[in-house]
């Protein structure tokens, strides 16, 4: 594969950021947090995957690729934006429902993304992991159940990281504003 996949992902990221900027003024902060969380996770679990057939400039360290990271980040940003768009309908348990709905969306779209990575041959599994997946129960004889569990597990940690920092930074900002107002008085 040539450079089309990498350039396509970069352009798609720019497009998503441009569109989402209209509804979320802090989208760049969310993008940065999601990127950091996914890269932390990918770095930690990199022995479990092989990211291959990408341009040399697409790799950060060993086979950890920032292009693959961007794909996951895009998925997270879009899923969170969709849920936030429909969230005002929820009056009670708003944050909990948003989280659960985001997880459902990400799990479904994440399975497709993983399938796409495998089809494009940018993702492969080491032999040990293949044996591991083969040994587990498959839904409809196709999708290993372990993969259906992996994506929400991975994403629960990522969404937790993003939302924790968003809430912490927002509360720090509002605290700073209060202090400034008090000083002015």
């Amino acid at each position, binding site marked *: 594969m040539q450079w089309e996949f990498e350039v396509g992902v970069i352009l798609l990221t720019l497009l998503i950021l441009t569109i989402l900027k209209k509804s979320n003024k802090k989208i760049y902060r969310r993008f940065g947090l999601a990127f950091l*969380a996914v890269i*932390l*996770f990918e*770095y*930690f*679990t*990199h*022995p*479990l995957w092989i990211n291959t057939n990408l341009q040399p400039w697409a790799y950060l360290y*060993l086979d950890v690729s920032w292009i693959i990271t961007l794909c996951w980040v895009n998925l997270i940003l879009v899923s969170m934006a969709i849920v936030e768009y429909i969230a005002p309908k929820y009056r009670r*348990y*708003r*944050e*909990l429902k948003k*989280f659960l709905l985001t997880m459902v969306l990400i799990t479904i779209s994440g399975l497709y993304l993983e399938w796409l990575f495998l089809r494009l041959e940018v993702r492969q599994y*080491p032999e*040990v*992991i293949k044996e*591991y997946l083969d040994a587990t129960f498959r839904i409809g004889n196709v999708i290993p159940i372990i993969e259906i*569990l*992996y994506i929400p*597990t*991975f994403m*629960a*940690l*990522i*969404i*937790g*990281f993003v*939302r*924790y*920092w968003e*809430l*912490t*930074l927002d*509360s*720090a900002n509002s*605290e700073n504003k209060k202090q400034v107002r008090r000083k002015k008085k």
Partner: protein
Amino acid sequence: MIWLLLFEVFTITFTIGLWIFMKNKGYKNITRKFLILFFSVLLFEFMSEPMWLNDGFQKWAYIWQDITWIITLGWVGIFMFTFLIVDYTFRKTPEKKKFWIYLLFLEAIVVPIEAGLVISGIRSYAPILANTLSGYFIPLTNVPIEAVYAVPLFTSLIICFYKYANYLFDRR
């Protein structure tokens, strides 16, 4: 294996001790906090399970493949102890700064424990992980140098998930 028995007894006693201490001190929703923390650690252990080998435990100690609830409980104890100490010592420090203190504190606790587990043979690294290590070790230990930056990587994800999950329950 005497090391393993000592480890099991210490882990269970320490975590139950922490729970009782918090109960007596009037902390709120303690059981919920312990369960969320247990679940947070379990999520990460589930994801990274093929990379570690936890050997020698009794059959009843294993939850799934190499994951043992004894090690998970040990992590719960370490995290909760860290939260208690840091939250008490740095009461007035803003949350965003306290996060970095949690990481430093965890780093200082976890590296010696990991060294102890590796020496005692309880913990070892699967070939899939061992093949990617640089071969350098933390001085005076047999812990790979990679642990120095791997510990803050995974603990930061667990801390955030734990804090966020608690926030979700508090806001119900």
